[in-house]
């Protein structure tokens, strides 16, 4: 049977508390998960706009390089990428003696790097796809207005592509939320990491993982709802007419 008391007792652990410590006294659990998610999405989005533009470039070399990057990062599991960055790179003396080691020795940074590169690859493809989808009429109109190529990109193509990317991007955000659960495998105490800690303390597998599942579920619900609001606001012009 499910031990509801165990779930209630251990809930503060997911909020950085537990074992006599006040809630939020550490960033264990939910805070760490949201931090990793937020920063990696921010970094990924920032990278993916220029990369998306490069991906649709007419220059084969430029678009080919970005294609290779997205192919590799979309073609391998994020867990493998994280292990290569965390355990793999640390095997090389040269890496350990370089300036990068200051960052790479931190599990937090390694996780952030893997997540950012991964989400940047997917988001690049989403944005590149929407740039290609730009209606030829809009381009023609921009050209008729005498806009330069970059002005047209900045004012017309990119804003419209980002709007149309919203539904696909909301998927990516939800996938990344679930994806951060592998951070626990490199010593970090995110939501899943905390659940694993409670599990090995109590030998009760069901309750802590159920608790973790409920937390992910609640945040998925929140994100989907926020994106619905955003789509209503920025994609209203694409919605079917109601009158």
């Amino acid at each position, binding site marked *: 049977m499910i031990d509801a008391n165990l779930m209630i007792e251990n809930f503060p652990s997911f909020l950085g508390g537990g074992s006599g410590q006040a809630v939020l006294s550490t960033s264990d659990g939910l805070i760490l998960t949201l931090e990793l998610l937020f920063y990696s999405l921010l970094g990924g989005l920032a990278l993916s706009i220029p990369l998306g533009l490069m991906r649709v470039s007419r220059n084969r070399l430029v678009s080919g390089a970005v294609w290779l990057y997205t192919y590799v990062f979309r073609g391998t599991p994020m867990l493998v990428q994280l292990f290569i960055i965390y*355990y793999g790179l*640390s*095997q090389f003396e040269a890496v*350990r003696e370089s300036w990068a*080691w200051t960052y790479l*020795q931190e*599990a937090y940074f390694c996780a952030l790097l893997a997540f950012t590169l991964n989400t940047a690859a997917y988001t690049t493809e989403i944005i590149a796809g929407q740039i290609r989808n730009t209606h030829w009429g809009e381009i023609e109109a921009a050209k008729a207005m005498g806009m330069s190529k970059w002005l047209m990109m900045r004012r017309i193509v990119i804003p419209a592509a980002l709007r149309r990317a919203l539904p696909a991007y909301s998927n990516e955000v939800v996938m990344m939320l679930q994806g951060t659960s592998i951070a626990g*495998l490199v*010593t970090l*105490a995110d939501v899943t990491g905390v659940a*694993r*800690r409670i599990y*090995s*303390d109590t030998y009760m597998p069901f309750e802590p993982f159920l608790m973790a599942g409920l937390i992910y579920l609640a945040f998925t619900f929140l994100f989907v709802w926020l994106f619905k609001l955003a789509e209503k606001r920025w994609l209203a012009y694409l919605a079917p007419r109601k009158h």
Partner: protein
Amino acid sequence: MKQPLLTLGALLCALTAASHAETLRFATDASYPPFSQQGPDGKMAGFDPDIARALCTAMKVTCEVVPQDFDGIIPALNAKKFDVIIASMNITDERKKAVNFSDKYYNMPSRLVAKNGAAVNDAWFKGKKIGVLRSSIQEKYARDHWVKLGAKLVPYGKAPESFLDLKAGRLDASFVDAAVGDTDFLKTPNGKGFAFAGPAYNEAKYFGEGAGIAVRKADAALLERLNKALKQIRADGSYDKIQKKYFSFDIYGN
């Protein structure tokens, strides 16, 4: 009608056992190197069988060491398939309900593994990152003693992962069972430049009472003889000789 028959059977068994008291049958785990394993000649070899034979010499009885899978070793003892269990069995309250334990015959300490020359004292712990196995007794000890000295604990799922990070320099030390640290890290090429640091930890409150020799509840006299023999081999140096054969550090504890 069953009761008298059983009593008679028990009496017979006791009588036969008594008449063969010169031979003691010791059971060890069939495969738990370096504590026990089948030698090339088919006989049991390792730390546990060697201690059993030394005990027999001290008690002046003949020894027979038999292999037995660890699960089911206590029921087999109570079914009189052998008389003594010497199988690296940790003394626990749960097991004490089923068998009687001798004094510990070893208590594997937990040790810090760190770079050669690390001078571990209370001040050393400040700001140090120490790898532990998640929810291990070592983690509990470290949490209660070292966190307040300023150490940061890093939890791992497996010991080899913490050794990788120790070698890579993400950790200042790894706190593990000494046998694990010795065989899985220090004796491997990866462990070059590393060594045990600081004292051996085996406070009973955290690390248990150690491994004991188990006999049936009824065999109080045998238990007493075993304890006496154990003291004797500790005193006359035969214990140390056996220990040195298998370990580069003291596993008896304080």
